[in-house]
């Protein structure tokens, strides 16, 4: 009898936690959608240079694993993806100075997907990089 009650209690707990996590699921589903699409675009447009784990390649292409770089330059990331970049930068304590080509063909949504993917998967961020944020980034720097 005792065993029976513990069984019921445990099942109820499981159901309870399951539902609790389901409350979050709207955000989670959206984030999953962003990262899945982001990964696809990343493989197509970025992986050659930056590597499948964002590890970069020697001193030619910087890694995308410097979370501080992402935080400090968050407002510039959309512009980097869309218009490329050049000049000396420091990533993970190493100097890089090569040219990244532009990706003019990428839409605002594409950029939001890609940036969500790299900042949450290679960096430590846990929030979506929204399309609104991309538009604002590009507007502020006259890059839209």
């Amino acid at each position, binding site marked *: 009898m005792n065993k029976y009650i513990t069984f019921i209690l445990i099942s109820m707990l499981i159901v309870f936690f399951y539902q609790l996590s389901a409350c979050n699921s709207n955000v989670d589903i959206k984030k999953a959608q962003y990262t899945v699409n982001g990964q696809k675009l990343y493989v197509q447009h970025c992986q*050659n240079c930056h590597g499948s784990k964002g590890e970069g390649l020697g001193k030619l292409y910087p890694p995308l694993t410097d979370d501080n770089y992402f935080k400090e330059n968050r407002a510039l990331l959309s512009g980097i993806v869309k218009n490329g970049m050049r000049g000396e930068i420091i990533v993970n304590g190493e100097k890089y100075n*090569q040219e990244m*080509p532009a990706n003019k063909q990428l839409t605002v949504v594409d950029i939001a997907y890609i940036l969500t993917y790299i900042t949450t998967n290679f960096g430590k961020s846990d929030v979506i990089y929204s399309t609104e944020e991309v538009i604002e980034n590009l507007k502020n720097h006259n890059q839209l």
Partner: protein
Amino acid sequence: MKINILVSSLFLGLIAVSCQSKDQKLPIIGEKEIITRQENGVTITDSVYPKIPSFQFLNQDSTYISDKDFDNKIYVANFFFTHCPSICPTMQRNLLQAYEKYKGDDRISFLSHSIDFKYDQPSVLKSYADRLGVDNNQWQFVTGSKAEIYGIADNYLVYAKEDSTVAGGYDHTGYLVLIDHEKHIRGAYDGTNDEQTQQMLKDIEILLQEYKK
């Protein structure tokens, strides 16, 4: 009945073993030519496989290197250019795996030909090699005239062409081509594909076994 099974499984086992040992030798790639010659009144036929012809190119240190520098070695050759935005970084990342694995081993070397004969002068190749992490002469980066580079690409069975419609301005295939001591092609691997790169690493070991003393 029992004996039957035993015998046939032994037989199958033998086939498996013999097939495996056969697999341990890499094929020679390319169309063979049958050549007949007369020796002491007897007709002898030889099958001749295509070889990489002799060459001379300028390397990242602005010195000329030639096929002689690859004598008594096996080597992996490929075609790239330093500003290539598409397949080259992946191909070079994969070749770098092999370079790092065999660094300091003088039985093997590496040869990257630039197909951007306009921009990739020795100083550009030097800075590229440095940044890639290549710091000895086991991996050579070379440039030459358009005719020389594109001509030898044909010998390595690699497609390379100037094409303003593709990203970077040059179209080419990302093959890593494995060459033996006789300058025969013994393997060609898609350098943009991880599995094929792993296969190349295995095949390099098999080829090195052929020259074990």
